[in-house]
């Protein structure tokens, strides 16, 4: 089975602006792919090329093995696209909106009636069936928009910043909806410039900046690849100095330092500088779990009273900052 999305050296120039620079994207079927990058990175450009609305300058874009430029109609049937703006018509009811787009996608009239009911049910808008589209709240419009993208039951959903402009509650509802879609077997390409919006719902992530794909892959893999450095937090009841002397000599430890600064002997004469009370240490560690247990054993064996030894979870946010900072410098 071909990947649902594949781009080969996809390049797009607007005059002198290079919006996409030899982008090679590979998204397997069934993934929820978080396409992350700051504003102007090229996310919308990529998505518009994939829906056939924009022609690439060079390179190729394939959806389920079909070239977007050569078989545009075929690709449109496979893709449900939600742009970063919500298109509303005056004087149009919610059910008519879905019926119209289903009809425009070639869904026969007989099927449409039932389909509209199903879609409204899915996005929890059945009670708004006869309301005017213009009068819906932003969150409801967004859900209606999502229902529209599914009007022809496509395999792939391309959602351009669907969470932007939504209040937290609507955002949670959207997230729940996307999980449901994943269960239904849809592949979803979803973009955002805010990482936390996508953090927990994606199976895959790609980070794009200035038209370059910096990293791409399964969330776990990407995290791993980006984070050889682990931050380990150690709390000791005493003998912090001894631990700090010992740690740098252990395999994999790059640096160790005390987190809470030492009490100042001038301002706080009650406590001596060499106070040997409880302390928190941070260790920058490179290596796997087995190596880390060696570090723990060595500390314990030397008599340091360790009460807490934990790898800090690094999240997508850190990763994003790390990657994009690297490029900005």
């Amino acid at each position: 089975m071909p990947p649902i999305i594949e781009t080969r050296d996809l390049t797009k120039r607007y005059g002198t602006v290079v919006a996409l620079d030899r982008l090679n994207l590979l998204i397997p079927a069934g993934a929820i792919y978080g396409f992350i990058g700051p504003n102007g990175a090229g996310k919308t450009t990529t998505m518009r090329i994939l829906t056939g609305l924009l022609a690439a300058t060079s390179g190729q874009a394939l959806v389920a093995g079909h070239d977007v430029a050569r078989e545009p109609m075929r690709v449109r049937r496979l893709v449900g696209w939600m742009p970063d703006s919500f298109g509303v018509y005056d004087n149009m009811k919610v059910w008519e909106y879905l019926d119209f787009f289903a009809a425009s996608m070639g869904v026969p009239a007989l099927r449409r009636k039932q389909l509209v009911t199903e879609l409204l049910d899915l996005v929890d808008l059945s009670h708004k069936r006869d309301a005017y589209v213009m009068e819906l709240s932003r969150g409801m419009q967004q859900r209606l928009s999502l229902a529209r993208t599914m009007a022809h039951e496509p395999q792939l959903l391309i959602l351009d910043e669907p969470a932007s402009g939504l209040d937290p509650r609507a955002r949670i509802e959207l997230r729940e909806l996307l999980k449901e879609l994943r269960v239904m077997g849809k592949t979803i390409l979803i973009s955002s410039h805010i990482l936390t919006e996508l953090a927990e719902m994606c199976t895959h992530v790609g980070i794009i900046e200035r038209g370059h794909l910096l990293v791409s892959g399964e969330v776990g893999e990407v995290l791993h690849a980006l984070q050889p450095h682990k931050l380990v937090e150690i709390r000791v009841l005493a003998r912090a100095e001894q631990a700090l002397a010992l740690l740098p000599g252990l395999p994999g430890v790059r640096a160790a330092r005390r987190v809470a600064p030492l009490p100042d002997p001038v301002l706080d004469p009650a406590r001596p500088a060499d106070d040997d009370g409880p302390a928190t240490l941070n260790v920058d560690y490179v290596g796997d779990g087995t190596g880390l247990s060696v570090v723990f054993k060595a500390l314990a064996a030397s008599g340091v009273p360790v009460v807490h030894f934990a790898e800090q979870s690094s999240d997508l946010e850190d990763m994003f900052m790390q990657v994009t900072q690297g490029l900005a410098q």
Partner: protein
Amino acid sequence: MSTFHNPVLLKELRSRMRGARAFVVLTAFLLVLAVFTLLLYAVARQRVGSDPLNAGRSIGKALFLGVAAVALVQVMIIVPAQAAGAIAGEKEHETYDLLLATVLPAWEIVLGKLLAALAYAVLLIVAVVPFMALAFLFGGVTATEVLIALLGLLATALLYGSVGIVWSVVSRRTITATVLTQATNVLMLLGIPFLIFPFGSLFLFGTPQLPTWFGFASYPFIYGTGWLLALHPFIALGGAEYVLSSGDTRWFVPMPGTLQAGHQIWIPTPWLAFVLMAVLASALLLTVATHLVRPVPRNRKLPSIK
């Protein structure tokens, strides 16, 4: 088949006929017609006072001409205005790209939009029928004249609607499309009459000596000019009325000036020429429009008609 299943047409009909706008426009249209009819009737009565024998006929004729002219002007304003918003409106509502991302071919979008504007025109034209019937009751007007007047209104709607569609595809905003459309129509109304000079000279002099232009003459040139004149609703339909009221109901007539010359050229009678030209020009305009339907760049950085 696909015309009647055209989703764009269905959508337009649903939402256009809803809401107060369609109702308000139709009411205004009828009010204008009614006021003019009353005024015309008053004036016509006064004028025929001295000739009671032919009073009915003259009043009927005056009413018919007045109603036809007022309806024509209104159709020429309302229909292109409707058409101008057709596709530019989609851009304003940010639904244009959504439309283009469907599997609807461009021609179906264009045709759906045009038919929706025409459906509206048919509504207006049907509303004219009672007024024409009134004129018919007075006498002095034949059923043929009435039918051809209605057909002429429909052809005008088609032609002017198509102009509106082209500008609607090109423009980003309805207001721009509307201005460009009305400007084009005014230009056509004012510009085409200038062509009457070469053509008119034929009428006036009606001799075998045809005028020569830049060394080449003559029939093809005059013939072409005639076809262009046929694009002017007032000239073409006015000419049609002139021919019809003289009792000539032939579809094809010899070209003026060629009768005496011995080698006759048969040309369609004005109303037929107008309908043919309207259909031809619309087909051409709609083909152009279809080819111009393509996604708009999102950023407004690129130069383009705003």
